């Protein structure tokens, strides 16, 4: 009995920096860290709100310091990459049908942006009114 040994060519760690599409792919996947950070940030915000008016104001002061703003700007850029790529992927991942006809990919993408706008408007109205 001999074991079947399969040769696997090792993949170099930095395989994704050589080609633009590979680089965008890894950046897209890394958006996950920033999604997690933004959830944690929102939890810190809610925690401050729960602790009282002074804690809420202190939190806003802290959140306006340059380092926090810089981090959040970077996080938002990665989030934008997530939004754009996610909306493009949806019609590829699932077939949307209206009756028996498939809905064109462009329409699926456009309706997601419409949903983003509607949800944003509702949240904005709830918070700022």
């Amino acid at each position, binding site marked *: 009995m001999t074991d079947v040994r399969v040769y696997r060519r090792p993949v170099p760690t930095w395989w994704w920096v050589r080609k633009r599409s590979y680089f965008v792919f*890894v950046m897209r996947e890394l958006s996950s860290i920033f999604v*997690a950070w*933004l959830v944690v940030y929102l*939890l810190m915000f809610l925690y401050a709100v729960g602790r009282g008016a002074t804690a809420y104001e202190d939190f*806003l002061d802290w959140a306006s310091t340059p380092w926090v703003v810089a981090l959040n700007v970077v996080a938002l850029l990665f989030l934008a990459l997530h*939004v754009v790529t996610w909306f493009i992927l949806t019609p590829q991942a699932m077939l949307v049908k209206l009756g028996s006809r498939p809905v064109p990919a462009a329409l699926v993408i456009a309706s997601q942006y419409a949903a983003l706008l509607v949800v944003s408007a509702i949240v904005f109205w709830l918070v700022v009114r």
Partner: protein
Amino acid sequence: MTRRRIEPLVWLMFSGGGVMAAVLLPVLAVLFALALPLGWVSPPDHDHLVSLFGNPLTQLVLTGVFVLMLVHSAHRFRYTLYDGLQVKMKRTIAVLCYGAAAVAALATVLVVWSVG
């Protein structure tokens, strides 16, 4: 074997969290991370925020959405490390990623339901 049965559920939560991160997270992030701290819009008073975030419906939605986004993030980061950055410690990565998501999910429940 249990892991195989859990796998489809994790992918489902990954997709759900991805949708939430694409549709709902941008406005929350822009508002609370930039617009309010930098004074682009005048921050709402504390009382208004307490009544908004202390509402059980808001709390229910936020809990669900945050947990989905955390699972989405953990699942995606797990495969980024494994396939993208070629870190081949499969088990350790999975435990660390989902472990972090579980801790954050617990924090979500505690924090979200403490307002009000």
